[in-house]
């Protein structure tokens, strides 16, 4: 099975984000970049499918030079090769999806996997858009995936509010991964060494025939308001409980 995994490099979730001057971007100095955690589930699933059915796992990512590091990490996890759509431009989900779809189209993939959303902008657009551009079916927020290679069909379980939806579909298809799909592996030493020799092809938007007509523009970014200092009630527990109820009712207005 030939699988394409689309990954995004995002700031580490433990990073404290600061808004840059001009209020249109974030300060990137000193940020630790990681693979979007939901994309890690997608990589893991691809590797497991390959281990069962054979084939190839290709990883694609769009972004500046630093993105190569994320691709290398997936190669160390066991992916076979990478494609780096190198660009320093600030793109929206639409353009990124166009570029990823162009890479997908150039080779015939049986399956395209990605995370259900990226944890930086939480847009959740790229997976569905790629499916639209490629005109293939899609299932999002997938918790369980079965591949029936004989009949070229997938059975996917997706998370809904309070229930599980089971979807059967033919492939090629786009699947977006939810936490719980699997437990991503860490790289092994032999794979870290092998990753050095694996191919990462560099592509450009231009070579892919993409004109970056950005439809979404960031107007401004602002930091969340600082939380006021906590009020600590001390003294007699009964009196404190009464005071708490009063505060929740009158001040917080939650009861």
């Amino acid at each position, binding site marked *: 099975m030939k699988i394409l995994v689309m990954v995004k490099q995002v700031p580490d979730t433990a990073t404290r984000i600061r808004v840059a001057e001009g209020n249109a971007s974030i300060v990137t100095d000193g940020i630790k970049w990681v693979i979007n955690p939901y994309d890690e589930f997608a990589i893991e699933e691809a590797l497991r499918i390959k281990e069962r059915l054979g084939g190839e796992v290709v990883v694609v990512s769009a972004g500046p030079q630093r993105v190569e590091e994320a691709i*290398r*990490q997936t190669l*160390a996890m066991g992916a076979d090769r990478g494609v780096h759509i190198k660009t320093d431009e600030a793109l929206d989900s639409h353009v990124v999806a166009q570029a990823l779809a162009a890479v997908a189209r150039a080779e015939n993939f049986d399956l395209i996997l990605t995370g259900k959303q990226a944890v930086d902008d939480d847009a959740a657009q790229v997976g569905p858009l790629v499916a639209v551009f490629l005109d293939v079916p899609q299932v999002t927020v997938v918790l369980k995936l079965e591949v029936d290679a004989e009949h070229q069909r997938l059975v996917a379980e997706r998370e809904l509010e309070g229930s599980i939806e089971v979807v059967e579909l033919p492939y090629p298809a786009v699947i977006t991964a939810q936490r719980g799909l699997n437990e991503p592996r*860490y*790289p*092994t*030493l*032999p794979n*870290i*060494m092998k*990753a*050095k020799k694996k191919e990462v092809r560099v592509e450009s938007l231009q070579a892919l025939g993409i004109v970056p007509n950005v439809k979404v523009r960031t107007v401004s970014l602002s930091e969340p308001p600082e939380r006021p200092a906590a009020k600590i009630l001390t003294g007699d527990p009964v009196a404190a409980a009464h005071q708490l109820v009063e505060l929740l009712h009158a001040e917080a207005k939650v009861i």
Partner: protein
Amino acid sequence: MKELLEDLRQGVRDLCATFPATYWRTLDHERQYPAAFVQAMTRAGYLAALIPEEYGGSGLGITEASVILEEVNRAGGNAAACHAQMYTMGTVLRHGSAQQKQWLLPAVAQGELRLQAFGVTEPGAGSDTTHLETTARRKDDGYLIRGQKIFISRVQHSDYLLLLARTTPIAEVTRRSQGLSVFLVNLHEAIGHGLTVAPIDTMMNHETNALFFDDVWVPEQNLIGQEGEGFRYILDGMNAERILIAGECIGDGEFFIEKATRYAKDRVVFDRPIGQNQGVQFPIARAYAQIRAADLMRFESAHRFDQGQSCGEEANLAKLLAADASWEAANVAIQVHGGYGFAADYDIERKFRETRLFQVAPISTNLILAYVAEHVLGLPRSY
């Protein structure tokens, strides 16, 4: 090269992230061996880093291996549980027969065979190794081992023990370093057939034992290299061990500095973070400087080792400086944390106990100073 080290660091961090502080804390409390962690390190191939590729390892150098161990300790773990699986095989690799290497090294690389116990120290012979009294005498195409060893680590989690024993009495050799031999002892066969293992309870979670050999028979093919040459075989593994241990000390030091710095920033007393006080920040800054300096000597010694240059001075200095720096950092971390430094939930006291070991083992600080005085500075031998 630098890129590979970064990738290695990231890989080990990813693995260690799946073994959080609570894992190590619980094991420490229960004095249990970190079996799941060691298995993960084995499966991920890190413990086979130094084994040549032809035997199923990754054929990396001491530089890379020391960085792997550093990251384990930096992440709050304790590499001492498994570091010896990395390098004990070195004696076999350098001095073993083709046949010994062929059966042993691939199995060690796969983790099917654990060779991470090394029997040298005795109740009557600590740093003065050549005075060891355990004997091996010829018997039926093999040797009968008799004697006592102490502070032999990881025996209960090893399949084989590398043993140094005297094959020619000290009275019959011209130099006391002669007449010692190295053996591979199959622990499963030996325990209950002359070998008794008595665990020693210590102040940290580190499995160590007293061993009693009461005529344990070891077949001839388990002798490493030539009879009587064992001391030399052991010595040339020492530099590697020093450098790897330096890596662990540096990892500990980084752990302490990171913890102390974070706490000093967050902890507010008298309406300001305690880290704003020079009395708090200067000791952290000094400990940081010492760790960085030791780190440079670690890389210098590792580089020389990997290039095949002499590195006795550098390896000893790296171990000395790194062990001192980690101990200093441990002290600073506990001081910065105040009472919380002693609370198990903060992990400082556990790491404090663990890093204290490096002042004593695998070589005591005084012995390094004696080495530097005698062999580097040319001063008279003091012992």
